[in-house]
């Protein structure tokens, strides 16, 4: 990517752009991936242990409050993965970073998966606490809309065959979604205060007990590491697939 006349960038950006080479990415990711999995496993185990066995039960909600240690980090990840997709989308459209397309495509199903986890665990949390399987409270509704946007993006990936065009179309859609998400969140919060003042999921707020906060944060980190690991594997798969596509094209054109 750099020619003889441009001086090599220093420090962080040098590292960033050096990874821009898919070959380099494959080498580095192969080296670090096992350690990433190890770290993920350790943080996950610690977080689960603290959340399920050590942290105190809520005196009102009892044990089922422990669902929060999955539900809230899943919501965080749903948003974090979308943020990753947005940065990747900018990478595709603005900086033409070669790995940006790959990153976008790899992230979408994982983000959708986390939002599904959030919605399902939210449902299981709501039933014993409030008696209903579904509440249209602000967080659940916003996460539901986020899931719908994810599903639309995944549908768009599948609809366009050519990878370059698909990546650009999805990038635009992702950015349009990113602009709309704060508006949607604001409107859903507004809508919710009109209809239902009480929220099932207050426990995520700033008044949270520190013994409950620690497992929450640890699970947040564990989920983030988990996403990073899965994302890297999916990116590797996509890069290999594209190499295979290029080989297949060359073979096909030779057969004329």
């Amino acid at each position, binding site marked *: 990517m750099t020619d003889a006349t441009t001086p090599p960038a220093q420090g962080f950006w040098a590292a960033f752009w050096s990874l821009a080479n898919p070959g380099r990415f494959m080498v580095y990711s192969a080296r670090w991936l096992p350690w990433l999995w190890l770290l993920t496993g350790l943080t996950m185990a610690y977080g689960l242990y603290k959340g399920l066995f050590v942290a105190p039960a809520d005196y009102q909600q009892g044990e089922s409050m422990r669902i929060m240690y999955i539900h809230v980090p899943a919501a965080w990840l749903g948003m974090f993965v979308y943020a990753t997709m947005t940065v990747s989308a900018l990478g595709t*459209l603005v900086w033409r970073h070669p790995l940006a397309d790959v990153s976008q495509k790899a992230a979408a199903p994982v983000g959708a998966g986390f939002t599904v986890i959030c919605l399902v665990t939210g449902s299981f949390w709501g039933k014993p606490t409030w008696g209903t399987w579904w509440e249209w409270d602000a967080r659940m509704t916003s996460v539901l*809309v986020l899931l719908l*946007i994810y599903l639309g993006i995944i549908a768009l990936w599948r*609809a366009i065959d050519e990878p370059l*065009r698909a990546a650009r179309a999805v990038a*635009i859609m992702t950015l349009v979604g990113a602009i709309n998400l704060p508006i949607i969140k604001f*409107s*859903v919060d507004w809508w919710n205060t009109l209809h239902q003042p009480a929220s099932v999921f207050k426990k995520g707020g700033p008044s949270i007990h520190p013994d409950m906060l620690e497992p929450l944060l640890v699970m947040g980190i564990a989920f983030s590491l988990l996403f990073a690991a899965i994302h890297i594997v999916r990116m590797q798969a996509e890069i290999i697939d594209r190499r295979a596509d290029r080989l297949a094209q060359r073979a096909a054109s030779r057969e004329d």
Partner: protein
Amino acid sequence: MIAALRAVLARELTLARRIGAGVELGIVFFLILISVTPFALGPDQKLLSRLAPALLWLSALLATLLGLDRLLQADEEDGVIDEMMMSAAPLELVLATKALAHWLVTGLPLAVLAPLLGLMLAISPDAMLPLALSLLVGTPALTFIGLVGAGLTVSLRRGGLLLSVLILPLTVPTLIFGVAVVREAAAGQPFATPLTLLGAITLIITVVSPFAAAAALRMTRG
């Protein structure tokens, strides 16, 4: 440049009239939707009256949605999009003009007719003018969001379904505030806040959408 845009507008309106996808069809569709919903809900006046704002807004949303995939597809098939990209006016403005034409033929008539159809749903008289106002302010947002979806799905088969999937989540804020205007008015409450928020959303969307749609057309056509 203005002449070019005026030509686009004139062409759109003429085409709409000629192929029968004009004002009349959108109005008829709206009427049919409103007529059919009581069969599903039952003739209870009080229930219909409570649901009227939502039903009218949902019908306006669906009526807008239905014509959107043809917004750009016909032009793509006829090679008009290439011409648009080479015209004197920037592509963004051309697309905005097309969206405006679409709204004049779809959203505007709905906004004007909705209070009358609302009578069929026993809407409160206080809410009739606010209903028209909310649709007037809100339906452009629906059309312009649809423009982005149209730009992204223009060369796809069955693009209409994907278009709806892509843009419906984005129409949630418009729906929330649009219905809120009518509901507050029906309850005799002030409705300035949701109306202003609705206006803000429409403004943001009408500005952002042509750029996104133009980018989509430029970057994704073969």
